[in-house]
């Protein structure tokens, strides 16, 4: 029986001809757009997560604490809410670090009369303090320390990156939704044509006592087939585009976002796209039937 129903669904697809092809193309475009934006957005999300981990707040100290007091200061700052980690950097450490950064120009440091760099504390914020608001509160707390001369650092730019990622997701969903509505209506049109073409079959089926399920299922299946075909084509296009473009953009992405490569969508997202296409087609098939029976 299942073989018969699937066979009828394929027969119906052939009957719908060009309209079915248009529906499949529209489903492909809508899911490819959605998948494309999803891919970019998920990579940006990875970058945001990575950069959130790298947010640091520096507390410049008024004076370098004596050797015995530095550990106590670190311990005290460790207890400030929102602080995940504290690293004490002495004046000497700061100067050594500067020399490393200057590389072959490090000799200029030797000409300084004294070490001008302050001792500092490098603070790693806890997750709650890695947001702009959280970071601002933490900066205020750290600035109120009696040893603090100045506090530098915020999470604002990470948040801006996060906002870009959300904007991209919204644009992707918008474009995908508009194309999905067009695809949905085209599947419904294709199904209406099929209904017209198979009216004699339907008449015979009812006459010989076929159940409503047997009559309707091929319509639903052909709609789902259109959706599934569109989704498979969209995924194929995404895989091909990713394979072609990702290696070329990798250096740029590494430089700007700090990501080693542009990752493809995980299997769960691919399954969601396949399911979305199939449901979209199935709904189109149902809509045509509902319209006919209304």
């Amino acid at each position, binding site marked *: 029986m299942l073989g018969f129903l699937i066979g009828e669904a394929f027969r119906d697809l052939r009957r719908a001809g060009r309209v079915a092809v248009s529906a499949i193309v529209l489903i492909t475009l809508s899911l490819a757009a959605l998948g494309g934006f999803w891919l970019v957005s998920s990579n940006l999300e990875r970058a945001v997560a990575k950069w959130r981990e790298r947010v640091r707040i520096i507390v410049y100290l008024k004076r370098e604490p004596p050797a015995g007091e530095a550990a106590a200061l670190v311990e005290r700052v460790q207890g400030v809410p929102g602080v995940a980690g504290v690293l004490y950097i002495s004046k000497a450490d700061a100067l050594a670090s500067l020399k490393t950064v200057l590389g072959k120009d490090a000799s200029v440091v030797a000409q300084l009369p004294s070490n001008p760099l302050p001792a500092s504390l490098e603070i790693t914020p806890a997750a709650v303090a890695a947001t702009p608001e959280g970071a601002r509160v933490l900066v205020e707390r750290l600035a109120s320390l009696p040893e603090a001369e100045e506090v530098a650092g915020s999470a604002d730019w990470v948040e801006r990156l996060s906002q870009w990622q959300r904007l991209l997701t919204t644009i992707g969903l918008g474009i995908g939704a508009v194309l999905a509505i067009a695809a949905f209506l085209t599947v419904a049109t294709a199904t209406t044509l099929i209904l017209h073409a198979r009216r004699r079959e339907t008449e015979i089926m009812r006459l010989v006592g076929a159940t*409503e399920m047997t009559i309707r299922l091929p319509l639903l299946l052909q709609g789902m087939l259109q959706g599934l075909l569109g989704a498979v084509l969209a995924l194929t296009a995404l895989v091909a585009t990713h394979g072609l473009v990702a290696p070329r953009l990798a250096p740029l992405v590494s430089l700007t976002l700090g990501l080693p490569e542009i990752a493809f969508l995980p299997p769960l997202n691919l399954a969601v796209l396949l399911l979305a296409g199939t449901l979209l087609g199935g709904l189109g098939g149902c809509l045509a039937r509902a319209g006919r029976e209304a």
Partner: protein
Amino acid sequence: MIELHRVWKVYSVGPVKVPALSDVSFRIAKGEFVVLTGASGAGKTTLLRLLYRDDLPSEGDIEVLGYDLVPLRRSRVAALRRSIGVVFQDAKLLPVRTVYENVAFVLRVLGTPRREITQRVFDALRVVGLSARAQAYPAQLSQGEAQRASLARAIVRKPPLLLADEPTGNLDDAMEAEIIDVLKDIGGGGTTVVLATHQARLAASLRRRTITLEGGRVVKDEG
């Protein structure tokens, strides 16, 4: 098998009520071959449509094969129809399928196991004398052959009741005789047959029980 009790069917054409059947009552026993005759518009087709529950009467009760048709739920209509074969004046064959596929279509729709289908289709085609034309398409058939294919489709499920609505209406005398012979064979096998025809000559030549309708009323029930 079939029982109609004071059945009325009235169509509304705007404010005007047009009775298609008026106070029709009769019984048909299992295995009977009954001819339903009358001029065009006498109510034969309306009556047959009521029997396979394509329509409901305006008044009265109808029982077919143990089903009380008036209160019958939509979901049960399919079960009723699985026990009824119907043939029309127009053979209603599916043009893109061969004779074999047309007949097999019914079995496939009803979920008959594939291994049974071939045997049952060829049995039905043998009854109507169309085995040699199994792979022909409807466009390649004569009208008589098309009607025989339609009969094969109606009997392939071996229904206990066969309704034939003017099956010879489009045929010449020779083809008509072929179809009538097939119907007699089917009736002879124990199937209840109700044959509607406007041809009084044909009805008389069959020498079977004949119910005559005039203006939607049964005016004669004899034989």
